[in-house]
């Protein structure tokens, strides 16, 4: 293998954590296959980011233009297509994010390259890319093979790898001579930040999180009681937001908050990845879910596979008892 190409993702003047994770995974693959590791960063006023990236790759390609101040799938596609056609890397790794999945499939079609998404692990053997991914909301995993091409694209899930900096700084190359064709049919208007809110989930020590298993609003008081008894803050998973039972600020997960409390109690939460991503680094995770096969038990420290309505009232009373209330 000659080269592994990695797209860096950044926002608000900072490289996102997932970028470092993907680079570390890329480094592992590159070592095993004696290949070069190249990072690509696209944006405006991003030289400092390129400097940082250089500690994670052999070479950093930097492309700057006002038009790509924010992520723009069409321009990114033009730039990456040009790089890939020129350098012909065997593997292209892109972070599995809202932006990554907007880009990867179109890149695959334009260049006629196989693509696989949301990958947990990858290896390269005999010209084939072998990946591990989840299916059925995390209940099963599979080993998947991509073959029949000299190049493959994979989007890598967040949080599956640590990030490791290297001692040696790689080369930074400014990309020139690339003419970006204007794309009047797609315009990025603005990036909006999340509003500041009253409850700060990210600084809470104890979080009581509720999922679909709670049924409906009439059962929320039980969660509030537990939260009061144990001195915690209430959070939730996606279905609760979709059902409009709690406001979006309470969402923990990929499209919400990432939290690392001392204690995370997951109630009626199945444990699909986009939620788990937001809480898997909690110090102590206790999960209650009627389904013993729920993926949440893959990340919990303690699991109770019982009816939450059986367990919760007794748990609340016990906590109150211990606290002498």
């Amino acid at each position: 293998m000659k080269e592994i190409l990695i797209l860096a993702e950044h926002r608000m003047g900072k490289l996102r954590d997932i970028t470092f994770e993907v680079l570390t995974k890329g480094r592992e693959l590159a070592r095993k296959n004696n290949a070069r590791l190249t990072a690509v960063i696209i944006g405006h006023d991003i030289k400092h980011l390129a400097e940082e990236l250089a500690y994670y790759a052999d070479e950093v390609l930097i492309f700057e233009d006002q038009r790509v101040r924010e992520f723009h799938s069409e321009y990114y596609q033009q730039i990456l297509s040009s790089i890939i056609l020129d350098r012909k890397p065997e593997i292209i790794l892109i972070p599995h994010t809202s932006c990554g999945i907007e880009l990867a499939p179109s890149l695959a079609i334009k260049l006629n390259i196989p693509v696989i998404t949301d990958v947990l692990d990858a290896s390269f053997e005999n010209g084939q890319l072998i990946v591990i991914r989840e299916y059925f909301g995390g209940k099963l995993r599979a080993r998947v093979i991509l073959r029949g091409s000299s190049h493959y694209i994979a989007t890598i899930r967040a949080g599956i790898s640590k990030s490791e900096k290297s001692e040696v700084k790689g080369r930074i190359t400014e990309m020139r001579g690339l003419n970006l064709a204007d794309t009047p049919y797609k315009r990025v208007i603005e990036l909006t930040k999340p509003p500041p809110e009253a409850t700060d989930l990210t600084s809470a020590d104890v979080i009581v999180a509720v999922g679909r298993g709670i049924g409906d609003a009439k059962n929320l008081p039980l969660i509030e009681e537990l939260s009061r008894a144990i001195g915690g803050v209430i959070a939730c998973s996606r279905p609760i937001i979709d059902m409009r039972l709690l406001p979006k600020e309470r969402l923990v997960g990929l499209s919400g908050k990432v939290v690392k409390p001392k204690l995370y109690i997951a109630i009626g939460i199945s444990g699909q990845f986009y939620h788990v991503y937001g809480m898997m680094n909690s110090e102590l995770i206790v999960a209650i879910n009627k389904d013993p096969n729920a993926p949440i038990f893959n990340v919990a420290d303690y699991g109770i596979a019982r009816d939450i309505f059986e367990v919760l009232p007794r748990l609340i009373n016990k906590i109150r008892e211990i606290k002498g209330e």
Partner: protein
Amino acid sequence: MTTSSFLEKEELKIIKDLNFNICLQCGKCTASCPLFQRTGLNPRTLMRKTLYFVFPLKTYPPLSLSEIDDVWDCTTCNNCVIRCPRDAKPVETILALRTILVERGNVPSTIREALESIYKLGNPFGISNFKRADWARDLNIKKASSEGKIDLLYFTGCITSYDSRAQNIARSMATALKISEIDFSILAEDESCCGNEVHSLGERGLFEILMEKNIELFQRYAVNKIITTCPHCFNALRNMYRLEDIEVQHHTQFLADLIDKNAIAFSKNIEKRIAFHDPCYLAKHNNIFEEPRRILENVPGAILLELEHSRRNSLCCGCGGGRMWYESPGEVSRPSEDRIKETMDAGAEILAVACPFCLSELEDAVKRMGCEDKLQVMDVAEIMCEAIAGSRI
């Protein structure tokens, strides 16, 4: 699919022939409605509004459907039907208005999920139908599919099959029947929701599918008699299914019969003061009051207390009519808490119920009010089983 807030012709057909036009507007229905004080659900006003849907007043703008949103608050307790001096049956008007909303797809999201689950999986909980008979594991209960032809069918029902607390009623029934050497079978994974709550929610099409499915099974296995755990199932099977040659009994009726025939041998005393909570679907819909009391009177050591609001005056627990899956916005407390207070005031140690909805809600209320050490909620079958088998299942 129409988005107009006014009724279309087909929708008017649904309500045209109801009794809203003999309504006196006396207000007895609203006065007796357990939801009126809590959510403002007003049966009298709904009867009036229905009149205006069909015969719009020339001096007022036509009514829009957004004005009947509170129809989802109704528990179908039947108080309004019992009290109406003209037999105008306000609850039927409420169900018809629900049908109009259902046909428009305009249903609260949690009710939508329950209905979709019932259609796909045969139960409202989103749990695979393969788990419906998990309660019966290790109990060696006959399944109709293995027997081919069965005489007595125990129709378990959704709540009893899937709710871990209510599953104990089924296990108690099974044990009581076994000890008394009564042969019976269950439909197990083949059983589908009886459809009573589906009908109460106005989803007539789904109710018909469930009814057809269950009747086909009853016929396939040449069932002669059915006992149900749940008064809602009892109501559907006996009054709505039209099963000509099949006798349907609620489990309290069946157990009372056994006692009358001296077929039950009690071995343990239950020396407690027990009050019976009449479920709406036994007392108010079907005039069944004596059988559960007869069972409790025969339990050795038990002292039967009569609550102030009993029989046709019983207090609704608040879970019928689809309310198990719907939280009325702004509702401060559930009717069940009133019942618990009344029971405690009467000095009862056990509140005996005969319905898994009541069991679930009243037990929740006991926990919410923090009186678990003073009051137990138990199904009549559980009490009876304890007195027969000598131990709590």
